[in-house]
């Protein structure tokens, strides 16, 4: 991988971390609010289904996770296991696709 590509991955991880920082706060605040209000699962679904704003929010959240986690694992695999090269990167791209796929499935289940 070129040095520019490695640097862009690093930038992508920092940028996705900034997005995740906001997303996690909103997500936690929403959970705490919903639980305190005594909302049931059905009531929550009634509020989220077809809601474009929540759909956009959780889509961004899921995509940020799919970008952030595999890049972090890339460094962990290199430093802890000494594993570098294409096979590692291919596995991590697959992991990113898996995270995005599972996350988007959850988003569509709650909102779609």
């Amino acid at each position, binding site marked *: *991988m070129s*040095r*520019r590509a*490695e*640097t*862009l991955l*690093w*930038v992508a991880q*920092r940028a996705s971390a900034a997005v995740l920082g906001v997303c996690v706060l909103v997500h936690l605040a929403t959970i705490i609010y919903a639980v305190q209000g005594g909302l049931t699962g059905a009531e929550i679904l009634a509020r989220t289904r077809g809601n474009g704003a929540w759909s956009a929010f959780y889509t961004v959240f899921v995509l940020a996770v799919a970008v952030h986690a595999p890049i972090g694992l890339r*460094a962990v695999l*290199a*430093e*802890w296991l000494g594993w*570098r090269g294409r096979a590692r990167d291919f596995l991590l791209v697959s992991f990113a696709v898996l995270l995005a796929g599972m996350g988007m499935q959850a988003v569509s289940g709650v909102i779609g």
Partner: protein
Amino acid sequence: MSATLQVRVWRGGARGAYREYEVPRRESQTVLDVVTHIQRAIDPTLAYRYACRVGMCGSCAMTVNGAPRWTCRTHVDKVARDGRLAIAPLRNLPVIRDLVADMREFFDKWARAQGQFKGARTRADDFERISPDSEARRRADAAIECIGCGVCYAACDVVAANPGYLGPAALNRAWTLVNDARDAAQSGRLRAVAGDDASLACHTHMSCTERCPKALSPTAGIAGLKRAVSRAALQGKL
């Protein structure tokens, strides 16, 4: 102050072992004084390295009670625990023998980080005028006093985990040159300090900054390099 020190000293190569010596305790005694006493009065086969004895040359760094230090300016008072010292060669470097570490890889990495100044002017040209107050000059000043002792390199956990990592001293050197308006090799240097084995690998543990005997902050310089290479990558200039 007890009359003697119990000193464990690493003997042999990477598979060596500690050997214990009893050294007379003296006032204002440095760790280098202790090692020198052992070599001159107890065991002349002990190998260690030093030159200036006053904190300028950077050759006497060793691991003292678990932490890398410049031994010529480390007083026994500050580091001995119950009159005991354990002295070993620097971590993260191959051991040649006893307290002597092989510094080749450490300095080769300075070259890989393009730590050489590359000017573009000749003696026929006028001097480059650089204001001492300019931001770049101040950034270079803050990092320039490195003596190349290797303490930061030995303290760095990223070097321990990734032996290919350039390390704090080489990157600190590159940072001084990135801030040098006279240098004509900037794009190549930024490429050299970008990527998985260079500035971006730093985890900001700050062990280098904690241990640097010259109170420099390689961490700050590496953070500056991260910003510079990120900017260059986004602009397609890397």
